């Protein structure tokens, strides 16, 4: 009975709304606690500030599960109203095939080129001078999370850079603490390698390999140092027996592990565990070596639609996502950084502030998602999965194969 009443009243509300109000289905893969709280901020803003209704299309699993579903819906002629993708080349071919709504009008009206910081996020949305996506947040990979508890037990100071981290490892191992927690999943291993590459090979060499696809640099001495460090890191992580990244983060939280290389989404785990940045844990951007962050994260794309009312609603949502209030509300819940420099995150903690400072100084790089196609990233993941799981895999062999992949990339 109750349900029937609810349905009746719901349909009454729907039919009573003004002409032009549409239900906009939005698909995304934000399903963990903090992520769901963040996305509900978007829904709230959209429902309150426009005539339209947000229909939540969360797809459980990770991006790897969700993206094929989204892409097959778009290519199969059943487009949703809006959809999440990561910044970068994931939706590039969909745009080239003319399946995405052009947002240039909104971008120019709102002056995105001036307000979006770093502007590379907008460049990642821009193809042939037209804007096809609305950037939403920034996530960066370049963080080393350190457990104060673990270093206290071992009686050594908390490291401030990678070399100190490696030097402190034997003291941790004596206490039965794993120096480096590393989840046994290809994306984590590949991501950690990417972080080490930027920190240890330096920005110039990283750009040459990832953006100019220069295989000679990939085979050269700068990257040799990275692969040697990766072999050392593999030994430090040898006693980790977990798969998921948050389980590895939990080892750092509980002091079973000294540190973990993971993106800033790990911060949510520390917050949920009630830990305070600077007191219970330390974060070192760029492994304490190179103060530079990559600027991955999420953007919304709007598949083309036949219905002009839906198109109008899409443009309204695009404008809303970049607006200052939504940027603050969403990013505080998500633990990510806003895409515009002119908003104030008063509630941001120690680690987020470090990130904001680096962004403000302009020490940024495009993310791997922006530079390399999913195909090339997949090949690198395969290489890293094998390299990290096989202690007999030498740095020279891995580097040679890495250079081959870069040489064949496009």
């Amino acid at each position, binding site marked *: 009975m109750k349900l029937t009443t609810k349905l009746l009243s719901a349909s009454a509300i729907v039919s009573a709304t003004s002409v032009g109000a549409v239900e906009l289905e939005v698909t995304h893969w934000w399903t963990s606690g903090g992520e769901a709280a963040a996305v509900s901020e978007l829904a709230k803003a959209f429902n309150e500030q426009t005539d339209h209704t947000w229909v939540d299309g969360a797809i459980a699993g990770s991006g790897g599960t969700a993206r094929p579903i989204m892409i097959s819906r778009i290519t199969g002629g059943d487009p949703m109203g809006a959809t999440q993708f990561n910044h970068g080349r994931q939706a590039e*071919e969909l745009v080239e*095939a003319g399946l995405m709504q052009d947002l240039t009008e909104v971008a120019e009206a709102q002056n995105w080129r001036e307000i979006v910081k770093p502007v590379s996020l907008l460049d990642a949305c821009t193809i042939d001078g037209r804007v096809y996506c609305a950037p939403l947040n920034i996530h960066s990979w370049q963080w080393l999370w350190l457990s104060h508890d673990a270093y206290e037990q071992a009686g050594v100071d908390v490291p401030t850079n990678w070399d100190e981290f490696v030097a402190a490892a034997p003291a941790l191992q004596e206490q039965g603490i794993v120096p480096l927690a590393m989840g046994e999943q290809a994306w984590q291993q590949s991501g950690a390698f990417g972080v080490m590459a930027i920190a240890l090979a330096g920005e110039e060499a990283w750009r040459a390999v990832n953006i100019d696809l220069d295989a000679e640099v990939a085979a050269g001495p700068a990257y040799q140092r990275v692969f040697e460090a990766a072999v050392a890191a593999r030994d430090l992580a040898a006693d980790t027996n977990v798969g998921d990244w948050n389980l590895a983060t939990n080892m750092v939280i509980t002091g079973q592990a000294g540190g973990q290389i993971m993106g800033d989404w790990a911060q949510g785990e520390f917050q949920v565990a009630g830990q305070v940045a600077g007191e219970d844990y330390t974060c070192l951007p760029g492994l304490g070596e190179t103060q530079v962050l990559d600027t991955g994260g999420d953007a919304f794309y709007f598949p083309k639609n036949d219905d002009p009312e839906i198109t109008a609603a899409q443009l309204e949502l695009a404008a809303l996502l970049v607006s200052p209030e939504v940027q603050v509300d969403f990013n505080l819940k998500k633990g990510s950084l806003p895409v515009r420099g002119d908003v104030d995150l008063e509630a941001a903690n120690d680690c987020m502030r470090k990130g904001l400072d680096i962004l403000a100084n302009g020490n940024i790089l495009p993310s791997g998602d922006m530079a390399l196609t*999913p195909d090339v990233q997949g090949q690198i993941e*395969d290489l890293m999965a094998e*390299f990290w*799981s096989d202690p007999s895999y030498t740095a020279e062999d891995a580097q040679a194969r890495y250079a081959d992949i870069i040489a064949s990339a496009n």
Partner: protein
Amino acid sequence: MSSAEHAPAGPDKRPIRLFRNLWSKIAAIPMILVSVGIFVGGTIWTIVYSFTDSGLLPRLNWVGLEQYERLWSTRRWLVSIENLAVFGIASLILTFALGFLLAALLDRKIRFEDTFRTILLYPFALSFIVTGLVWQWILNPEFGVQSIVRGLGFESFTFDPLYDSSKVMIGLLIAGLWQGTGLIMVILLAGLRGIDEDIWKASRVDGIPAWKTYVVIIIPMLKPVFITALVLVTSGIVKLYDLVVAMTSGGPGISSEVPAKFVYDTLFTRQNLGQGFAASTMMLVTVAIILIPWALLQFRGKKND
């Protein structure tokens, strides 16, 4: 064969071949369209596009054999093929050995046969995903077999196949056998039940021991049943995917990758249709290598009858 074919046709009223059994032919049209359109058409489409550089979306930009050259120089593909061969051969031999052994034991007119049959067939009712998850827990060194045996006092006991790249296929094989042997047992048992009692009586009169009767007389008589079971088992092996995803997701490293997982990952998460089509075409070739001899066997068998 229908009775119509044997109906005596008058010399002046010979039915046209095409219109014989007209209604059954009309009824079969949708099926024919589906199988030609979807199966054959889809297969040809896939093979054609495996010679292009299609990425996320298919496009006809010819690159010749490039996708195949890249495929056969990709380590993950080579590891996948090797894993499939190891898993396939071991699983074929063991499924048939165990399945036949269990079927023969059940056929000895034991008590509670129904109960045993149900228990042995039951794992087949579970999907590979459930099977994989269950065995992942059982084989987990932290709280599975290893920790139980260690708890009994054998401190140095080590059994963690899923965390050791040289043994991971054994872990998959255990789960696969647990799930699949019951079905083969039931099929072979049905075959055994079809053997005439007189054959057993005759062999007993001649004083031939039971095991020898099985090997020399019964198994050759069961040839058609074995072939059916063989096709079922091999097609299950070639499409091995969900068990791996549930148990190891290809790890540790890439040591338990299989071709079907390579195809899925390449097509959908890596947005490289051309490469994925090349890999699935190679899988089709593998299946054809298995199916063509079977089809020939069946065909020849019919002629001889």
